C-alpha cells in the first residue's frame, strides 16, 4: 500500500512539473487570444525559435544562462511583433478563419524554414541547472522541476499584475473588451496589440529555453505538440484568462501523469482531449471563463 501511495505522490510531482511547462506556454497563448481572439497556432513555433536563439547564445556566443534567456526573449518578442504586423494585422477586420489559416501558414513557415536553416537534427542544450536531486521520503524531485514550477508561478503573477494594474494592461483589457470603443477612447490599439504580441512571444521564448534546458534537446518541430497541449490547457482554464492558463496547464499535466501512471500511457492524449471536451460541454467557456452568450 505504501508503495502505491508513494507512486501516486511521485506522479503528482511529475504532473506538476510537466503541467508548469504547459502553463508557461499557455500563458502567452491565452494572452494573445484574449486580445485579438486569434488562435495563434504559431505560438509553439515562436517558442521553438526562442529555444534555438537561446541555444545559439549559450553554445556559439558562450553567454551564460540569464543573458541567453533575455536575448531569446527579445528576439522572439521582435519576431512576434513582426509576425503580427505582417501576417495578422491586415486580417484583423475580415473573417476570423482567414487569420487562422494565416496562423497555420506562419506556423508551417517557421517549422520548415527552421528546418532549412538549422537542419532537422536534434540539438542538445548544455547543462545549466545543477544536477541536484532531492529525495524526500522516496519521492524524487529534480532541481529543474523546482525552477520550472517557480518560474511559471512568478511569470503568472507578473503577467497578472501587468494586465490588472498597469496602464498598458488596462489598455490591453480595453482592447480585448471592445476594440472600437478602445480606439475611440484614445487608446493606440495597434501598439497595444503589438505589446501583447511582444510579451506573449517573449514568454514563449522563455518557455522554449526552459524546455530546452529541462529536456536537453531541441528540434525544429518541437513546438507542435507542446503548442497544441498548451492551447488545450488555455481553453481548459478559460481562454483569455491568465490564472486559468496556469490552472489548465497544471490540470493537464496532472491528468497526463496519472493516466500514464495507471499504465495507459498510450491513451494519455485521448483522455486529455476527452476531459477537455467534457469540461467544454459542461462549462463551455472553460473552468474559469465567464459564460457570455454571443449577441448580434
Amino acid at each position, binding site marked *: 500500500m505504501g508503495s502505491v501511495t508513494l507512486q501516486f505522490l511521485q506522479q503528482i510531482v511529475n504532473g506538476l512539473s510537466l503541467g508548469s511547462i504547459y502553463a508557461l506556454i499557455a500563458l502567452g497563448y491565452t494572452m494573445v487570444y484574449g486580445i485579438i481572439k486569434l*488562435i495563434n497556432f504559431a505560438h509553439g513555433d515562436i517558442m521553438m525559435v526562442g529555444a534555438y536563439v537561446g541555444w545559439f547564445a549559450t553554445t556559439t556566443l558562450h553567454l551564460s544562462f540569464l543573458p541567453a534567456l533575455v536575448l531569446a526573449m527579445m528576439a522572439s518578442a521582435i519576431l512576434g511583433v513582426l509576425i503580427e504586423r505582417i501576417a495578422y494585422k491586415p486580417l484583423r477586420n475580415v473573417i476570423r*478563419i482567414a487569420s487562422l489559416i494565416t496562423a497555420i501558414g506562419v506556423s508551417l513557415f517557421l517549422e*520548415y524554414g527552421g528546418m532549412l536553416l538549422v537542419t532537422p537534427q536534434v540539438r542538445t542544450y548544455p547543462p545549466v541547472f545543477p544536477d541536484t536531486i532531492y529525495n524526500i521520503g522516496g519521492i524524487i524531485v529534480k532541481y529543474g522541476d523546482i525552477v520550472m514550477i517557480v518560474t511559471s508561478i512568478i511569470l503568472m503573477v507578473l503577467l497578472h499584475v501587468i494586465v490588472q494594474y498597469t496602464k498598458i494592461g488596462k489598455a490591453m483589457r480595453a482592447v480585448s473588451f471592445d476594440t472600437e470603443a478602445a480606439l475611440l477612447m484614445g487608446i493606440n490599439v495597434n501598439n497595444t496589440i503589438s505589446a501583447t504580441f511582444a510579451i506573449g512571444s517573449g514568454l514563449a521564448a522563455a518557455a522554449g529555453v526552459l524546455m530546452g534546458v529541462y529536456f536537453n534537446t531541441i528540434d525544429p518541430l518541437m513546438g507542435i505538440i507542446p503548442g497544441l497541449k498548451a492551447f488545450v490547457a488555455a481553453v481548459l482554464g478559460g481562454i483569455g484568462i491568465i490564472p486559468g492558463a496556469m490552472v489548465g496547464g497544471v490540470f493537464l499535466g496532472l491528468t497526463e501523469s496519472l493516466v500514464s501512471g495507471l499504465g495507459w500511457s498510450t491513451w494519455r492524449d485521448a483522455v486529455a482531449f476527452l476531459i477537455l471536451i467534457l469540461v467544454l*460541454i459542461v462549462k463551455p467557456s472553460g473552468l474559469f471563463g465567464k459564460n457570455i452568450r454571443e449577441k448580434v
Partner: protein
Amino acid sequence: MGKWMNRQSLVTILGVLLIYGIVQGSIFMDVMPPFVALTLIQICIYVILSSSLNLINGITGQFSIGHAGFMAIGGYFAAIVIVKFHGPLVLALLVGAIVSAVAGFLIGLPTLRLNGDYLAIATLGLGEIVRIIFLNTEYVGGASGFSVPKTINWTWAFGLTVLSILVMRNFINSTHGRACISVRENEIAADAMGINTTKYKIIAFTLGAFFAGLAGGIYANYMYIIQPMTFSFLKSFDILVMVVLGGLGSLTGSIVGAIVMTVASAALAGLPEWRLVITAVLLVAMMIFRPTGLLGTKEFSLSFLGKKGDKNAASKN
C-alpha cells in the same frame, strides 16, 4: 427558366463526361503517366473532403477542424469490410461513410452547442481521439498500418466525386441547405424565425462526416496502406486550408481549392525541403491579399452551373 436550366445541365453533364472521357481514354490508351493519374485521384479524394468540410464550416458556419477523424473512420471501416470480411467495394465504402456519419451525429449532438473557437478545439480533440483509438487497436494494425488492396480506379473515384458533389449541391440548394445558411448568417435571427438551429447544425455535421468517411474509404482502397499518423490534425488543417483558399461557403471554391493545393503539392515534389516553406508563404500572402479565398462566396446567388462558368473565368484570369 426551365429551358435555361436544362441547357446548363446538359453542358455540365457534357463537361463532366468529357473530363472523364479524356482521362479514362488516356489511361486506356496507356498514355496517361501514372503519377498524373494518381494526382487526379488524389484530387478527387480532396475535392470530396474539402466540399464536405465546406458544408460544415462554409455553409453552416460551424468551425470544425477535426475532419481527418471522420476520414479515418471511413477509411478504417471500409478497409475492415474489404480485408476482414472480404466484402464488395460498394458495401465497404457505404459502411465506412455510414459509420462515419453515425459518429458525426453522436459527436455533433453534444459538441455543436459550443461556439466558434470552442467548437474548433473540441472537434480537433475528437479527431485526435479517433486517431488514438485506431492507433491503439491492434485489430487494424495499430501504428504500423493496415494494408488494403488497391481496388479504386479512376472511374470509381471520379464517379463518386461527381455523385457527392451533386448530392451536396442539391442539399445546399434545398430548404435544408437554406436553413443551414441562415444559421451561418445569423444564428439568433434564424432561431427567431423558427428554424431549429441545432437540428440543422447536426444535419450538416452528419452529412459532412458521411462524405468525409466516403473520401476516407476511397483513400484507403487506393493507397495500399492506411496509418493512424496520416489522419493527424495536420491533415484536418490541410483540408481546412483548401476550403478557405477556395472560398468559404462556395462549393466550387472548395473544388478549386482542393485542385490547387493538390497540384501545387505535386508540382513542388521536386523541391522537398522548400515545398512547405513555399506553400506557407503563398498561403499567408493569399490570405492577406484575398482573405475571402479564390472565389469568395459570390457565386452563392448563382446556380451550380453558373458557377461552372465562373470557374472558367477564374482560371482564365
